[in-house]
């Protein structure tokens, strides 16, 4: 008996040397997203849509799932990855999974995203944006 998704979970956990290379997780997420968009688009269009990065406003998620140069990681993320490559990989995958889950919940009938907390970076950024907006 195997655990559902065990291969992907193992690949995710073995991130020590994987942060610079594409792991099966990116491909699985990309194929899932394409499958979701294939419901109301032609497959080629769905692939182009995901590659173009227009499917989300989240630059990290868009850059994670594209296979072209149409979407790139933001500067702050590149700096973060340079400083802490393993942490950055972990953050990038978790963030992308959350974004794809949100899209999956919108595109399907019964799917409910796993109860997860927003990452502390997101919370901090929201807080900073709120504070900045309040002052101006």
């Amino acid at each position, binding site marked *: *008996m*195997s*655990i*559902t*998704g*065990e*291969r*992907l*979970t*193992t*690949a*995710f956990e073995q991130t020590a040397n994987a942060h610079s290379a594409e792991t*099966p*997780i990116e491909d*699985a*997420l990309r*194929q*899932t997203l394409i*499958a*979701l968009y294939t*419901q109301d688009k032609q497959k080629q269009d769905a692939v182009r849509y995901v590659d173009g990065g227009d499917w989300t406003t989240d630059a990290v998620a868009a850059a994670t799932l594209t296979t072209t140069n149409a979407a790139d990681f933001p500067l702050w993320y590149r700096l973060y990855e340079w400083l802490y490559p393993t942490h950055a990989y972990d953050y990038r*995958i*978790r963030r992308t*999974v959350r974004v*794809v*889950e949100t899209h*999956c919940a919108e*595109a*399907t*009938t*019964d*799917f409910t995203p*796993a109860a997860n907390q927003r990452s502390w970076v997101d919370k901090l950024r929201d807080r900073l944006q709120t504070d900045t907006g309040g002052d101006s």
Partner: protein
Amino acid sequence: MRIRRFSGFRAYALLLAATGVLTGTYTLILAAGIPLLFVLTAAVATTPAIDDTVTVTRELTPETPSPGESIAVTLTIENTGTSTIPDLRVVDGVPPEIGVTDGSPRSGGALRPGDQYTVTYTISADRGSYSFGPVTLRARNTNGTRLAETTKTADGIDRFECRVTIEDIPVQQTTAYAGQLATDSGGPGVEFHATREYRPGDPVKRVDWRTYAKTGELATIEFREQHAAHITVLIDSRRTAHTAANRNAPTGATLSAYAATIALEVLINEGHEVSLGALGVADPETDRQPPAWAAAAEGRSFVPHATAICNAAATGTTDNSHTGFDSAATADNTPPATSVADGGVAWDRTRSLVPTGAQVILCSPVTDGPITDLVESLRADGHAVTVLSPATTPATIGGRITGMQRAARLESLRLLGATIIDWASEDSLRDALTRLTGMGR
């Protein structure tokens, strides 16, 4: 058992007393009495008696759980003795094969004579029989210098069987599978057929009151009778379906087999013509290649044959169609090169076995692409398809991604016109099957 807790205090007492004598300080001599008091208390302390003065009772809710169902275990510990047990620690003997999903089987506290306290925790088990081990009790006296340890067999339930019982089946309900084929004979039904002369005993609701108002004569409305169509129940027990949310949870194939077992019982009890197929399983009676098949035409031997197939589907797979592929990889939505999971090519054998016009109930965790191909083929053949899909996705990164892949597949099945019953892990089997049997009304 004696614990040498205050043995160091003797040295303190001696040191203080000696210093007091040498220096002629009475205060130090008196101070030596304090550690000496601890030493004396430890020396005269008695070991708490727990062998015959503590009773343990175990209760399970429910007592006969279904696979994967949460089982609440309540352990009641009572002090039947005459003295207080200042510190009693309890560890229940949870069966080693299963895991605790909530709470802890360990607890502790003081227990006065006649008092009791309860330990509550939740376990979850796959199919099978499980036995609890003895409860370990450990008691200390007030100052912790005496330790008593013993094991006791709890009163009440010490073993349980995780299975599906007939009581789990919502048999009081009438299924929605009334059939597709209208007949020319009149009787109860929904579509008007004719009116006839009233006969005593006819139901009042079928009296044609309009004719009575016009002519003053009672007439009875006859509706077009509908006969139940053939229903085929399919269990997905291919290799990709044998994945679970965790090591203690039942696999998707096991859950599918149990759901199918219950659906079969309900449908047979209601007089429907039913056949059963198990994808990825060789026939346990004839060793014929997958899918194992019990046809309605088998008559009396259908039920034992179907039961054997359900058991085989719940326990394992003989599906070798994915040889050369990593089973975990296919569970993660890497489809095999060809859809040969039924022993034929592109589900041809399964399609040929499903009777013409039959409605299909497919019990599958929908863990890969080929199962959607099967539903598409069945829909193309004109079969109404209902998919009862147990969710077996954990909250890990891989589980979450696989859960999304499953959701996308279920959505594509909806678009194919199949009715989807998503059996979420928190739903009970009864709830899921109530939705299955009550569907469409």
